Protein backbone atom coordinates (compact mmCIF):
# COMPACT_ATOMS: atom_id res chain seq x y z
CA UNK A 1 0.00 0.00 0.00
CA UNK A 2 2.74 2.39 0.99
CA UNK A 3 4.54 1.85 -2.29
CA UNK A 4 1.60 2.67 -4.52
CA UNK A 5 1.97 6.04 -6.23
CA UNK A 6 -0.53 8.68 -5.06
CA UNK A 7 -3.64 9.00 -7.16
CA UNK A 8 -4.42 12.52 -8.35
CA UNK A 9 -7.70 14.04 -9.53
CA UNK A 10 -7.87 17.34 -11.46
CA UNK A 11 -11.00 19.45 -10.96
CA UNK A 12 -11.53 22.58 -13.08
CA UNK A 13 -14.42 23.83 -15.19
CA UNK A 14 -12.15 25.06 -18.00
CA UNK A 15 -10.67 22.37 -20.19
CA UNK A 16 -7.56 24.40 -21.13
CA UNK A 17 -6.82 24.81 -17.42
CA UNK A 18 -7.14 21.05 -16.91
CA UNK A 19 -4.86 20.37 -19.88
CA UNK A 20 -2.29 22.76 -18.51
CA UNK A 21 -2.25 20.97 -15.16
CA UNK A 22 -1.94 17.60 -16.93
CA UNK A 23 1.10 18.88 -18.85
CA UNK A 24 2.68 20.18 -15.66
CA UNK A 25 1.96 16.96 -13.77
CA UNK A 26 3.69 15.02 -16.55
CA UNK A 27 6.70 17.25 -16.03
CA UNK A 28 6.62 16.40 -12.32
CA UNK A 29 6.60 12.67 -12.91
CA UNK A 30 10.40 12.10 -12.70
CA UNK A 31 10.45 13.68 -9.22
CA UNK A 32 7.01 12.67 -8.14
CA UNK A 33 5.56 9.43 -9.53
CA UNK A 34 1.75 9.44 -9.49
CA UNK A 35 -1.32 7.96 -11.08
CA UNK A 36 -3.73 10.36 -12.77
CA UNK A 37 -7.25 9.28 -11.86
CA UNK A 38 -8.98 11.62 -14.23
CA UNK A 39 -10.62 14.99 -14.49
CA UNK A 40 -13.86 16.51 -13.27
CA UNK A 41 -15.37 19.78 -14.42
CA UNK A 42 -17.19 20.75 -11.23
CA UNK A 43 -17.41 19.87 -7.55
CA UNK A 44 -20.34 17.52 -7.85
CA UNK A 45 -18.60 15.45 -10.52
CA UNK A 46 -15.49 15.38 -8.38
CA UNK A 47 -17.33 14.04 -5.32
CA UNK A 48 -18.96 11.38 -7.52
CA UNK A 49 -15.58 10.22 -8.87
CA UNK A 50 -13.93 10.20 -5.46
CA UNK A 51 -16.84 8.14 -4.09
CA UNK A 52 -16.21 5.53 -6.77
CA UNK A 53 -12.45 5.28 -6.92
CA UNK A 54 -11.07 7.41 -4.07
CA UNK A 55 -8.19 9.83 -4.50
CA UNK A 56 -5.09 10.86 -2.59
CA UNK A 57 -4.62 14.38 -3.93
CA UNK A 58 -7.24 16.65 -5.46
CA UNK A 59 -6.19 19.72 -7.43
CA UNK A 60 -9.32 21.76 -6.93
CA UNK A 61 -10.30 24.96 -8.77
CA UNK A 62 -12.18 27.40 -6.57
CA UNK A 63 -14.63 29.15 -8.89
CA UNK A 64 -16.76 26.55 -10.67
CA UNK A 65 -20.43 26.23 -11.63
CA UNK A 66 -22.84 23.90 -9.76
CA UNK A 67 -20.55 23.48 -6.76
CA UNK A 68 -17.42 25.50 -6.13
CA UNK A 69 -14.10 24.19 -4.85
CA UNK A 70 -14.40 25.45 -1.30
CA UNK A 71 -17.73 23.73 -0.76
CA UNK A 72 -16.46 20.55 -2.44
CA UNK A 73 -13.56 20.45 0.01
CA UNK A 74 -15.96 20.73 2.95
CA UNK A 75 -18.03 17.79 1.74
CA UNK A 76 -14.95 15.67 1.09
CA UNK A 77 -13.86 16.07 4.72
CA UNK A 78 -16.71 13.74 5.68
CA UNK A 79 -14.89 10.77 4.17
CA UNK A 80 -13.04 8.50 6.52
CA UNK A 81 -9.84 9.11 4.51
CA UNK A 82 -10.31 12.49 2.91
CA UNK A 83 -7.92 13.29 0.05
CA UNK A 84 -5.30 16.02 0.42
CA UNK A 85 -6.58 19.15 -1.23
CA UNK A 86 -4.61 21.76 -3.16
CA UNK A 87 -6.75 24.67 -4.32
CA UNK A 88 -6.00 26.33 -7.65
CA UNK A 89 -7.20 29.81 -8.49
CA UNK A 90 -6.55 32.75 -10.79
CA UNK A 91 -7.89 35.08 -8.14
CA UNK A 92 -5.33 36.90 -6.07
CA UNK A 93 -7.64 38.62 -3.66
CA UNK A 94 -8.01 39.22 0.01
CA UNK A 95 -9.79 35.86 0.27
CA UNK A 96 -6.40 34.25 -0.04
CA UNK A 97 -5.18 35.90 3.15
CA UNK A 98 -7.48 33.54 4.99
CA UNK A 99 -5.82 30.63 3.19
CA UNK A 100 -2.39 31.78 4.32
CA UNK A 101 -3.52 32.31 7.88
CA UNK A 102 -5.09 28.88 8.09
CA UNK A 103 -2.36 26.96 6.30
CA UNK A 104 -4.67 25.87 3.48
CA UNK A 105 -2.55 25.12 0.44
CA UNK A 106 -3.29 26.84 -2.85
CA UNK A 107 -1.66 27.45 -6.23
CA UNK A 108 -2.08 30.61 -8.25
CA UNK A 109 -2.88 30.11 -11.93
CA UNK A 110 -0.87 30.14 -14.12
CA UNK A 111 0.83 27.50 -12.00
CA UNK A 112 4.62 27.13 -11.95
CA UNK A 113 6.17 23.70 -12.13
CA UNK A 114 8.26 24.15 -8.95
CA UNK A 115 5.28 25.40 -6.96
CA UNK A 116 3.20 22.43 -8.09
CA UNK A 117 5.93 19.97 -7.14
CA UNK A 118 6.32 21.54 -3.70
CA UNK A 119 2.58 21.46 -3.14
CA UNK A 120 2.33 17.79 -4.17
CA UNK A 121 5.14 16.75 -1.83
CA UNK A 122 3.66 18.75 1.00
CA UNK A 123 0.24 17.24 0.35
CA UNK A 124 1.66 13.73 0.74
CA UNK A 125 3.46 14.50 3.98
CA UNK A 126 0.64 16.37 5.64
CA UNK A 127 -2.62 15.08 4.26
CA UNK A 128 -5.20 16.23 6.72
CA UNK A 129 -6.78 19.57 6.11
CA UNK A 130 -8.11 20.88 9.38
CA UNK A 131 -11.91 21.11 9.16
CA UNK A 132 -11.82 24.22 11.35
CA UNK A 133 -9.47 25.98 8.92
CA UNK A 134 -11.67 24.93 6.04
CA UNK A 135 -14.77 26.26 7.72
CA UNK A 136 -13.11 29.65 8.00
CA UNK A 137 -12.07 29.91 4.36
CA UNK A 138 -15.29 28.33 3.06
CA UNK A 139 -17.97 30.15 4.99
CA UNK A 140 -20.48 30.90 2.24
CA UNK A 141 -23.94 29.36 1.94
CA UNK A 142 -23.66 25.80 0.62
CA UNK A 143 -25.41 24.67 -2.56
CA UNK A 144 -25.49 21.07 -1.34
CA UNK A 145 -25.70 19.25 2.00
CA UNK A 146 -23.85 16.00 2.37
CA UNK A 147 -24.44 12.82 4.31
CA UNK A 148 -22.04 9.95 4.66
CA UNK A 149 -23.40 6.55 3.77
CA UNK A 150 -21.06 3.54 3.79
CA UNK A 151 -18.04 5.88 3.57
CA UNK A 152 -19.40 7.57 0.49
CA UNK A 153 -20.43 11.18 0.44
CA UNK A 154 -23.97 11.60 -0.83
CA UNK A 155 -24.75 15.11 -1.97
CA UNK A 156 -28.23 16.49 -1.52
CA UNK A 157 -28.85 19.69 -3.55
CA UNK A 158 -30.35 22.26 -1.21
CA UNK A 159 -32.74 23.21 -4.02
CA UNK A 160 -34.28 19.69 -3.85
CA UNK A 161 -34.99 19.73 -0.12
CA UNK A 162 -38.69 20.19 0.83
CA UNK A 163 -38.14 20.42 4.54
CA UNK A 164 -35.65 19.71 7.33
CA UNK A 165 -36.89 18.24 10.61
CA UNK A 166 -34.90 17.82 13.81
CA UNK A 167 -35.16 14.34 15.29
CA UNK A 168 -33.13 13.47 18.39
CA UNK A 169 -29.46 13.68 17.29
CA UNK A 170 -30.21 14.07 13.62
CA UNK A 171 -31.89 16.31 11.14
CA UNK A 172 -34.05 14.57 8.54
CA UNK A 173 -33.79 16.06 5.05
CA UNK A 174 -36.85 15.31 2.96
CA UNK A 175 -36.74 15.49 -0.83
CA UNK A 176 -39.48 14.33 -3.20
CA UNK A 177 -37.62 11.04 -3.65
CA UNK A 178 -36.36 10.07 -0.19
CA UNK A 179 -35.10 11.06 3.25
CA UNK A 180 -31.55 11.61 4.46
CA UNK A 181 -30.16 11.79 7.99
CA UNK A 182 -27.83 14.71 8.56
CA UNK A 183 -25.62 15.22 11.61
CA UNK A 184 -25.92 18.98 11.98
CA UNK A 185 -27.87 21.30 14.22
CA UNK A 186 -31.11 22.78 12.94
CA UNK A 187 -30.19 26.13 14.50
CA UNK A 188 -27.10 26.41 12.31
CA UNK A 189 -28.98 25.25 9.24
CA UNK A 190 -31.62 27.89 9.89
CA UNK A 191 -28.94 30.59 10.05
CA UNK A 192 -27.26 29.44 6.86
CA UNK A 193 -30.43 29.00 4.78
CA UNK A 194 -32.67 31.71 6.20
CA UNK A 195 -33.12 33.14 2.69
CA UNK A 196 -34.73 30.01 1.27
CA UNK A 197 -36.18 28.21 4.32
CA UNK A 198 -38.90 29.17 6.76
CA UNK A 199 -38.97 28.13 10.41
CA UNK A 200 -42.50 26.85 11.14
CA UNK A 201 -41.82 24.89 14.29
CA UNK A 202 -39.11 24.50 16.90
CA UNK A 203 -38.06 21.38 15.05
CA UNK A 204 -38.89 22.15 11.43
CA UNK A 205 -37.66 24.31 8.53
CA UNK A 206 -39.64 24.24 5.30
CA UNK A 207 -38.37 25.36 1.88
CA UNK A 208 -40.28 28.46 0.83
CA UNK A 209 -40.62 27.28 -2.76
CA UNK A 210 -42.27 24.02 -1.67
CA UNK A 211 -45.00 25.75 0.36
CA UNK A 212 -48.28 25.64 -1.54
CA UNK A 213 -50.48 27.08 1.21
CA UNK A 214 -51.66 26.98 4.81
CA UNK A 215 -54.69 25.29 6.32
CA UNK A 216 -56.36 25.84 9.66
CA UNK A 217 -57.12 22.60 11.50
CA UNK A 218 -59.93 22.64 14.05
CA UNK A 219 -59.91 19.45 16.13
CA UNK A 220 -62.17 18.41 18.95
CA UNK A 221 -60.39 18.60 22.29
CA UNK A 222 -57.46 20.75 21.09
CA UNK A 223 -56.97 24.36 20.08
CA UNK A 224 -57.16 25.19 16.37
CA UNK A 225 -53.76 25.35 14.68
CA UNK A 226 -52.22 25.91 11.25
CA UNK A 227 -50.53 23.36 8.98
CA UNK A 228 -48.34 23.89 5.93
CA UNK A 229 -49.47 22.24 2.69
CA UNK A 230 -46.63 21.17 0.39
CA UNK A 231 -46.31 21.10 -3.38
CA UNK A 232 -46.07 17.51 -4.70
CA UNK A 233 -46.12 15.94 -1.19
CA UNK A 234 -49.26 14.82 0.66
CA UNK A 235 -47.81 15.55 4.11
CA UNK A 236 -49.02 18.44 6.24
CA UNK A 237 -46.49 20.07 8.55
CA UNK A 238 -47.77 21.62 11.77
CA UNK A 239 -47.02 25.28 12.47
CA UNK A 240 -46.36 25.90 16.16
CA UNK A 241 -48.31 28.56 18.00
CA UNK A 242 -45.12 30.55 18.52
CA UNK A 243 -44.40 30.55 14.76
CA UNK A 244 -48.00 31.17 13.64
CA UNK A 245 -47.01 34.68 12.51
CA UNK A 246 -45.30 33.13 9.44
CA UNK A 247 -48.75 32.29 8.05
CA UNK A 248 -49.49 35.99 7.73
CA UNK A 249 -46.00 36.99 6.67
CA UNK A 250 -45.54 34.38 3.94
Amino acid at each position, binding site marked *: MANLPPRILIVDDESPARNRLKDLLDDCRPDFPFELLGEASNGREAVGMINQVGADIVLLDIRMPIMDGLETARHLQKLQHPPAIVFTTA*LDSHALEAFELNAVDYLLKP*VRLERLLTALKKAMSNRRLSPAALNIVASQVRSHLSVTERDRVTLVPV*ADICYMRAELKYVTLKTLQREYLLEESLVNLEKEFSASFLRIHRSCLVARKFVSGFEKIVDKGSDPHWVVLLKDLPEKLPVSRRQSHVVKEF
Partner: protein
Amino acid sequence: MRREIGDGEDERQKFVMASINQNGASISLPNFCNLGAMLRSLLLVNAIGLVFALARADQLNMLWREFLSVATFLEPALLASMVVLCTARPFLKRLSYHSGLLVIALTVLLISTLIHKMGQRLLGDDMPYGLIHIWILSLLTTGVLLTYFELRARALSPALTEARLQALQARIRPHFLFNSLNTVLSFIRSEPKRAELALQDMAELFRVLMADNRQLTTLENELELCRQYLRLEQLRLGERLQVVWHTDKMPGNALIPPLLLQPLLENAVYHGVEPATFTGEVVINIYRHHDQVIIVLRNPYHRENSHHTGNKMAMNNIRERLALHFDAEASLKTQSLNDVYQVTITMPYVSQEK
Protein backbone atom coordinates in the same frame (compact mmCIF):
# COMPACT_ATOMS: atom_id res chain seq x y z
CA MET B 1 13.51 81.64 7.00
CA ARG B 2 10.06 83.21 6.96
CA ARG B 3 10.79 85.03 3.75
CA GLU B 4 11.81 81.85 2.07
CA ILE B 5 8.53 80.22 2.92
CA GLY B 6 6.74 83.32 1.66
CA ASP B 7 8.56 83.15 -1.64
CA GLY B 8 7.75 79.51 -2.03
CA GLU B 9 4.11 80.31 -1.39
CA ASP B 10 4.28 83.03 -4.03
CA GLU B 11 5.73 80.66 -6.56
CA ARG B 12 2.98 78.20 -5.89
CA GLN B 13 0.34 80.89 -6.25
CA LYS B 14 1.77 81.90 -9.59
CA PHE B 15 1.78 78.31 -10.72
CA VAL B 16 -1.83 77.82 -9.68
CA MET B 17 -2.83 81.06 -11.43
CA ALA B 18 -1.06 79.99 -14.59
CA SER B 19 -2.77 76.67 -14.66
CA ILE B 20 -6.16 78.28 -14.07
CA ASN B 21 -5.56 80.67 -16.94
CA GLN B 22 -4.61 77.83 -19.16
CA ASN B 23 -7.80 76.09 -18.31
CA GLY B 24 -9.75 79.28 -18.90
CA ALA B 25 -8.39 79.53 -22.40
CA SER B 26 -9.77 76.12 -23.32
CA ILE B 27 -13.30 76.76 -22.08
CA SER B 28 -15.70 76.68 -25.01
CA LEU B 29 -19.14 78.11 -25.57
CA PRO B 30 -22.03 76.00 -24.36
CA ASN B 31 -23.52 73.65 -26.92
CA PHE B 32 -27.08 74.91 -27.35
CA CYS B 33 -28.05 71.79 -29.31
CA ASN B 34 -27.45 69.70 -26.20
CA LEU B 35 -30.56 68.58 -24.36
CA GLY B 36 -28.94 69.10 -20.96
CA ALA B 37 -27.92 72.67 -21.84
CA MET B 38 -31.47 73.37 -23.05
CA LEU B 39 -33.07 72.06 -19.89
CA ARG B 40 -30.68 74.01 -17.69
CA SER B 41 -31.29 77.21 -19.67
CA LEU B 42 -35.04 76.76 -19.44
CA LEU B 43 -34.91 76.34 -15.67
CA LEU B 44 -32.55 79.25 -15.14
CA VAL B 45 -34.44 81.63 -17.41
CA ASN B 46 -37.70 80.86 -15.65
CA ALA B 47 -36.03 81.45 -12.30
CA ILE B 48 -34.86 84.85 -13.52
CA GLY B 49 -38.37 85.56 -14.78
CA LEU B 50 -39.67 84.77 -11.31
CA VAL B 51 -37.20 87.17 -9.69
CA PHE B 52 -38.16 89.86 -12.19
CA ALA B 53 -41.85 89.29 -11.45
CA LEU B 54 -41.17 89.43 -7.71
CA ALA B 55 -39.51 92.79 -8.13
CA ARG B 56 -42.45 94.20 -10.10
CA ALA B 57 -45.34 92.77 -8.10
CA ASP B 58 -46.63 95.08 -5.37
CA GLN B 59 -48.53 92.31 -3.69
CA LEU B 60 -48.05 88.59 -3.58
CA ASN B 61 -51.30 87.90 -5.47
CA MET B 62 -49.96 89.93 -8.40
CA LEU B 63 -46.91 87.67 -8.61
CA TRP B 64 -48.50 85.06 -10.85
CA ARG B 65 -49.79 87.61 -13.34
CA GLU B 66 -46.44 89.36 -13.49
CA PHE B 67 -44.65 86.06 -13.94
CA LEU B 68 -46.98 85.07 -16.78
CA SER B 69 -46.50 88.33 -18.59
CA VAL B 70 -42.71 88.06 -18.25
CA ALA B 71 -42.79 84.43 -19.35
CA THR B 72 -44.79 85.22 -22.49
CA PHE B 73 -41.80 87.23 -23.57
CA LEU B 74 -38.95 85.19 -22.11
CA GLU B 75 -40.06 81.75 -23.31
CA PRO B 76 -40.32 82.54 -27.06
CA ALA B 77 -37.15 84.64 -26.88
CA LEU B 78 -35.23 81.78 -25.25
CA LEU B 79 -36.51 79.11 -27.60
CA ALA B 80 -35.92 81.22 -30.72
CA SER B 81 -32.40 82.09 -29.52
CA MET B 82 -31.67 78.42 -28.82
CA VAL B 83 -32.79 77.39 -32.30
CA VAL B 84 -30.72 80.15 -33.94
CA LEU B 85 -27.63 79.43 -31.82
CA CYS B 86 -27.93 75.69 -32.37
CA THR B 87 -28.13 76.20 -36.14
CA ALA B 88 -25.23 78.64 -36.01
CA ARG B 89 -23.09 76.23 -33.97
CA PRO B 90 -20.61 75.38 -36.76
CA PHE B 91 -20.02 79.13 -37.22
CA LEU B 92 -19.84 79.87 -33.48
CA LYS B 93 -17.33 77.10 -32.93
CA ARG B 94 -14.82 78.85 -35.17
CA LEU B 95 -14.90 82.04 -33.09
CA SER B 96 -12.82 82.72 -30.01
CA TYR B 97 -14.59 82.46 -26.68
CA HIS B 98 -15.04 86.22 -26.22
CA SER B 99 -16.19 87.07 -29.73
CA GLY B 100 -18.53 84.10 -29.42
CA LEU B 101 -20.05 85.69 -26.31
CA LEU B 102 -20.49 88.96 -28.19
CA VAL B 103 -22.23 87.25 -31.10
CA ILE B 104 -24.55 85.45 -28.69
CA ALA B 105 -25.44 88.69 -26.92
CA LEU B 106 -26.16 90.47 -30.22
CA THR B 107 -28.25 87.54 -31.46
CA VAL B 108 -30.32 87.60 -28.29
CA LEU B 109 -30.80 91.37 -28.55
CA LEU B 110 -31.93 91.08 -32.16
CA ILE B 111 -34.36 88.27 -31.40
CA SER B 112 -35.81 90.04 -28.37
CA THR B 113 -36.31 93.19 -30.45
CA LEU B 114 -38.13 91.18 -33.10
CA ILE B 115 -40.31 89.52 -30.50
CA HIS B 116 -41.05 92.89 -28.94
CA LYS B 117 -42.11 94.25 -32.32
CA MET B 118 -44.37 91.23 -32.87
CA GLY B 119 -45.83 91.71 -29.41
CA GLN B 120 -46.57 95.35 -30.21
CA ARG B 121 -48.34 94.40 -33.38
CA LEU B 122 -50.46 91.81 -31.53
CA LEU B 123 -51.22 93.74 -28.37
CA GLY B 124 -50.88 97.33 -29.56
CA ASP B 125 -50.56 99.70 -26.61
CA ASP B 126 -51.26 96.93 -24.06
CA MET B 127 -47.59 95.86 -24.26
CA PRO B 128 -46.43 95.91 -20.64
CA TYR B 129 -42.71 96.59 -21.29
CA GLY B 130 -40.85 99.14 -23.35
CA LEU B 131 -38.03 98.19 -25.71
CA ILE B 132 -35.34 99.39 -23.27
CA HIS B 133 -36.91 97.23 -20.59
CA ILE B 134 -36.76 94.23 -22.87
CA TRP B 135 -33.14 94.88 -23.81
CA ILE B 136 -32.07 95.09 -20.19
CA LEU B 137 -34.01 91.97 -19.29
CA SER B 138 -32.58 89.96 -22.21
CA LEU B 139 -29.01 91.08 -21.66
CA LEU B 140 -29.24 90.38 -17.96
CA THR B 141 -30.70 86.91 -18.55
CA THR B 142 -28.11 86.10 -21.20
CA GLY B 143 -25.35 87.31 -18.91
CA VAL B 144 -26.49 85.16 -16.01
CA LEU B 145 -26.96 82.17 -18.29
CA LEU B 146 -23.52 82.45 -19.90
CA THR B 147 -21.85 83.03 -16.54
CA TYR B 148 -23.57 79.95 -15.23
CA PHE B 149 -22.39 77.88 -18.19
CA GLU B 150 -18.87 79.20 -17.86
CA LEU B 151 -18.77 78.32 -14.15
CA ARG B 152 -20.19 74.91 -14.90
CA ALA B 153 -17.65 74.34 -17.66
CA ARG B 154 -14.88 75.37 -15.28
CA ALA B 155 -16.16 73.04 -12.59
CA LEU B 156 -16.42 70.06 -14.90
CA SER B 157 -13.63 70.72 -17.30
CA PRO B 158 -11.01 70.25 -18.34
CA ALA B 159 -8.72 69.37 -15.46
CA LEU B 160 -11.46 67.99 -13.22
CA THR B 161 -13.29 66.11 -15.93
CA GLU B 162 -10.03 64.65 -17.11
CA ALA B 163 -9.14 63.57 -13.63
CA ARG B 164 -12.54 62.00 -13.19
CA LEU B 165 -12.36 60.29 -16.56
CA GLN B 166 -8.96 58.93 -15.71
CA ALA B 167 -10.21 57.62 -12.39
CA LEU B 168 -13.15 56.06 -14.17
CA GLN B 169 -11.07 54.33 -16.82
CA ALA B 170 -12.41 50.85 -17.09
CA ARG B 171 -10.43 48.40 -15.05
CA ILE B 172 -10.28 44.89 -16.36
CA ARG B 173 -10.71 42.16 -13.77
CA PRO B 174 -7.26 40.83 -12.91
CA HIS B 175 -8.57 37.28 -12.98
CA PHE B 176 -9.24 37.73 -16.70
CA LEU B 177 -5.54 38.40 -17.33
CA PHE B 178 -4.40 35.37 -15.38
CA ASN B 179 -7.06 33.04 -16.75
CA SER B 180 -6.16 34.12 -20.29
CA LEU B 181 -2.46 33.60 -19.69
CA ASN B 182 -3.22 30.18 -18.28
CA THR B 183 -5.31 29.33 -21.36
CA VAL B 184 -2.56 30.43 -23.72
CA LEU B 185 -0.01 28.37 -21.77
CA SER B 186 -2.19 25.30 -22.15
CA PHE B 187 -2.19 25.65 -25.94
CA ILE B 188 1.52 26.27 -26.41
CA ARG B 189 2.49 22.60 -26.52
CA SER B 190 -0.51 21.12 -28.29
CA GLU B 191 -1.64 23.91 -30.63
CA PRO B 192 1.09 26.56 -30.93
CA LYS B 193 -0.77 28.33 -33.77
CA ARG B 194 -3.80 28.97 -31.57
CA ALA B 195 -1.57 30.14 -28.76
CA GLU B 196 0.06 32.62 -31.14
CA LEU B 197 -3.28 34.06 -32.24
CA ALA B 198 -4.47 34.30 -28.66
CA LEU B 199 -1.33 36.15 -27.58
CA GLN B 200 -1.82 38.62 -30.43
CA ASP B 201 -5.38 39.25 -29.35
CA MET B 202 -4.21 39.72 -25.80
CA ALA B 203 -1.50 42.16 -26.83
CA GLU B 204 -3.97 44.34 -28.72
CA LEU B 205 -6.54 44.16 -25.96
CA PHE B 206 -4.07 45.20 -23.32
CA ARG B 207 -2.65 47.94 -25.49
CA VAL B 208 -6.08 49.58 -25.42
CA LEU B 209 -6.69 48.74 -21.77
CA MET B 210 -3.48 50.43 -20.73
CA ALA B 211 -3.78 53.40 -23.07
CA ASP B 212 -5.05 56.79 -22.14
CA ASN B 213 -8.73 56.36 -22.86
CA ARG B 214 -10.15 59.81 -22.33
CA GLN B 215 -10.83 60.54 -26.01
CA LEU B 216 -13.82 59.10 -27.83
CA THR B 217 -13.32 56.19 -30.18
CA THR B 218 -15.43 54.79 -33.01
CA LEU B 219 -17.98 52.06 -32.51
CA GLU B 220 -16.12 49.99 -35.11
CA ASN B 221 -12.91 50.13 -33.07
CA GLU B 222 -14.68 49.27 -29.86
CA LEU B 223 -16.36 46.33 -31.53
CA GLU B 224 -13.07 44.98 -32.84
CA LEU B 225 -11.77 45.12 -29.28
CA CYS B 226 -14.85 43.24 -28.07
CA ARG B 227 -14.32 40.56 -30.70
CA GLN B 228 -10.74 40.09 -29.54
CA TYR B 229 -11.89 39.88 -25.96
CA LEU B 230 -14.61 37.35 -26.75
CA ARG B 231 -12.23 35.22 -28.84
CA LEU B 232 -10.03 34.88 -25.77
CA GLU B 233 -12.96 33.97 -23.56
CA GLN B 234 -14.22 31.46 -26.13
CA LEU B 235 -10.85 29.77 -26.15
CA ARG B 236 -11.09 29.40 -22.38
CA LEU B 237 -14.76 28.50 -22.04
CA GLY B 238 -15.23 26.54 -25.27
CA GLU B 239 -18.82 25.66 -26.09
CA ARG B 240 -20.10 27.22 -22.90
CA LEU B 241 -19.88 30.68 -24.50
CA GLN B 242 -22.06 31.42 -27.51
CA VAL B 243 -22.01 34.93 -28.99
CA VAL B 244 -24.69 36.29 -31.32
CA TRP B 245 -23.96 39.57 -33.13
CA HIS B 246 -26.67 41.77 -34.61
CA THR B 247 -24.50 44.60 -35.86
CA ASP B 248 -25.21 44.85 -39.62
CA LYS B 249 -27.26 48.03 -39.05
CA MET B 250 -24.68 49.51 -36.72
CA PRO B 251 -23.28 52.98 -37.55
CA GLY B 252 -19.59 52.05 -37.39
CA ASN B 253 -18.39 55.65 -37.43
CA ALA B 254 -20.38 56.67 -34.32
CA LEU B 255 -18.20 58.03 -31.54
CA ILE B 256 -18.39 56.36 -28.14
CA PRO B 257 -16.30 56.39 -24.97
CA PRO B 258 -13.63 53.70 -25.31
CA LEU B 259 -14.10 50.52 -23.29
CA LEU B 260 -17.80 51.12 -22.93
CA LEU B 261 -18.87 47.77 -24.32
CA GLN B 262 -15.99 45.54 -23.34
CA PRO B 263 -16.60 45.78 -19.56
CA LEU B 264 -20.27 45.00 -20.18
CA LEU B 265 -19.31 41.88 -22.10
CA GLU B 266 -16.91 40.95 -19.34
CA ASN B 267 -19.79 41.23 -16.90
CA ALA B 268 -21.98 39.13 -19.17
CA VAL B 269 -19.36 36.37 -19.28
CA TYR B 270 -18.57 36.55 -15.57
CA HIS B 271 -22.16 36.61 -14.29
CA GLY B 272 -24.04 34.99 -17.17
CA VAL B 273 -21.82 32.33 -18.68
CA GLU B 274 -19.25 31.19 -16.12
CA PRO B 275 -21.71 30.12 -13.39
CA ALA B 276 -23.42 27.56 -15.67
CA THR B 277 -22.34 24.27 -17.21
CA PHE B 278 -24.70 24.56 -20.15
CA THR B 279 -24.28 26.96 -23.08
CA GLY B 280 -24.76 30.61 -22.23
CA GLU B 281 -25.76 32.94 -25.03
CA VAL B 282 -24.56 36.54 -25.12
CA VAL B 283 -26.53 38.63 -27.63
CA ILE B 284 -25.22 41.98 -28.87
CA ASN B 285 -27.59 44.21 -30.82
CA ILE B 286 -26.46 47.63 -32.06
CA TYR B 287 -28.43 49.93 -34.35
CA ARG B 288 -29.19 53.52 -35.11
CA HIS B 289 -32.60 54.98 -34.37
CA HIS B 290 -32.97 58.54 -35.75
CA ASP B 291 -30.22 60.51 -34.02
CA GLN B 292 -29.50 57.89 -31.42
CA VAL B 293 -27.30 54.85 -31.18
CA ILE B 294 -28.90 52.00 -29.27
CA ILE B 295 -26.86 49.17 -27.81
CA VAL B 296 -28.67 46.21 -26.31
CA LEU B 297 -26.82 43.41 -24.55
CA ARG B 298 -28.44 40.25 -23.25
CA ASN B 299 -27.03 37.39 -21.22
CA PRO B 300 -28.41 34.57 -19.05
CA TYR B 301 -29.16 35.54 -15.48
CA HIS B 302 -28.50 33.22 -12.54
CA ARG B 303 -30.41 34.27 -9.49
CA GLU B 304 -28.69 31.92 -7.03
CA ASN B 305 -25.10 32.97 -7.50
CA SER B 306 -25.10 36.55 -8.64
CA HIS B 307 -22.68 38.96 -6.98
CA HIS B 308 -24.45 42.25 -7.39
CA THR B 309 -21.91 44.58 -5.88
CA GLY B 310 -19.22 44.12 -8.52
CA ASN B 311 -21.81 44.40 -11.26
CA LYS B 312 -23.31 47.59 -9.85
CA MET B 313 -19.89 49.23 -9.64
CA ALA B 314 -19.17 48.54 -13.29
CA MET B 315 -22.59 49.89 -14.30
CA ASN B 316 -22.16 53.07 -12.28
CA ASN B 317 -18.74 53.59 -13.78
CA ILE B 318 -20.13 53.36 -17.31
CA ARG B 319 -23.10 55.58 -16.42
CA GLU B 320 -20.79 58.26 -15.10
CA ARG B 321 -18.54 58.14 -18.14
CA LEU B 322 -21.56 58.42 -20.43
CA ALA B 323 -22.72 61.44 -18.43
CA LEU B 324 -19.31 63.13 -18.64
CA HIS B 325 -19.26 62.73 -22.41
CA PHE B 326 -22.93 63.21 -23.33
CA ASP B 327 -24.59 64.80 -20.29
CA ALA B 328 -28.32 64.02 -20.05
CA GLU B 329 -28.58 62.68 -23.60
CA ALA B 330 -27.16 59.24 -22.90
CA SER B 331 -28.62 56.63 -20.60
CA LEU B 332 -27.92 53.11 -19.38
CA LYS B 333 -30.74 50.89 -18.20
CA THR B 334 -30.56 47.39 -16.79
CA GLN B 335 -33.36 44.94 -16.31
CA SER B 336 -33.66 41.27 -15.47
CA LEU B 337 -36.61 39.47 -17.04
CA ASN B 338 -37.01 35.84 -16.01
CA ASP B 339 -33.63 34.30 -16.73
CA VAL B 340 -32.27 37.05 -18.96
CA TYR B 341 -30.31 40.10 -17.93
CA GLN B 342 -30.47 43.03 -20.33
CA VAL B 343 -28.45 46.23 -20.56
CA THR B 344 -29.66 49.00 -22.87
CA ILE B 345 -27.50 52.01 -23.70
CA THR B 346 -28.96 54.94 -25.57
CA MET B 347 -26.67 57.72 -26.69
CA PRO B 348 -26.62 60.51 -29.25
CA TYR B 349 -25.29 59.60 -32.68
CA VAL B 350 -22.18 61.69 -33.11
CA SER B 351 -20.19 60.68 -36.16
CA GLN B 352 -16.48 61.01 -36.65
CA GLU B 353 -16.51 63.63 -39.41
CA LYS B 354 -18.29 66.28 -37.39
